[in-house]
């Protein structure tokens, strides 16, 4: 079951918002972090975030549990 964590700061809000709207993804907030977990793959399309490369490729800054199956300039997918 994949998990992903983000510091709850402005530059990661596009990623947090996309996952907040995703189906079957549970969100938990606490102590300045936002955690998402899912029974299915966690998937984010970069174009949905509008992020430039510098922040996009730092999307895993808060850490993750699971296996990265794709992380390129278009998609981040954790299974």
């Amino acid at each position, binding site marked *: 079951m994949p998990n992903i964590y983000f510091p709850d700061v*402005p530059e990661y809000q596009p990623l947090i918002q996309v996952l907040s709207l995703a189906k079957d993804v549970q969100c*938990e907030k606490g102590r*300045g*972090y936002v*955690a998402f977990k899912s029974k299915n793959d966690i998937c984010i399309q970069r174009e949905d975030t509008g992020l430039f490369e*510098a*922040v996009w490729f730092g999307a895993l*800054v808060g850490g993750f549990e699971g296996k*990265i199956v794709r992380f390129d300039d278009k998609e981040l997918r954790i299974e």
Partner: protein
Amino acid sequence: MNTPTEINRNIPQLHGVHHTAFPTWKPKSTVEFYRDGLGLKMPHAITAKGWGRSENGHPDFLHFFFEAGDNSLIAFFYYIGTKPNPTFTALRGQYLGLARHTAWTARDVAELERWRTVIKRTGVKVTPVVRHETLSSIYFQDPNGYDLEIACQDRPLQEIDVVDTGLTIEAMIQTFGDDNPDEKTVYDMWHKKAELVRKYMQSTS
């Protein structure tokens, strides 16, 4: 947990950068770029006979300074009669070259754009404004090949930034130590980070 901003009363404090210094074998181009191109004032220059160490092979030299704002300076040594040393000036490859650089402060993105115009006028290539986490930057090189950056802070850093830095650094140390282990990847570090973040979220204070 110790944090980077925690003040230890037992040690003195630093008050910003006074100057950084680099060797140059292009003193004319260096002055033309920094003084005439970027408009930096030159408040100080030292000229010396081997710094009293000529017998030990120390060359005679000039050491000259450019003002970089808020009392900070960037300085150069010109060692008379020496040959350019590629260890300092040769291109080190894109990522290693950028790893050692000087970054100056701008107030905001508008000021970064004004600097882009000034830098382009010198004939030097400069990147568009790059938005990072918490700051924006432009990058360029001086005539010596040294990498320069001008950056502005897009938002003030908060307590969570300091906490997150502490957890990242702990994950880095636990994953890599000083051993440069071949089998460890950034994914191993991010797994460790997740473990530390989860524990932090579950702890009460």
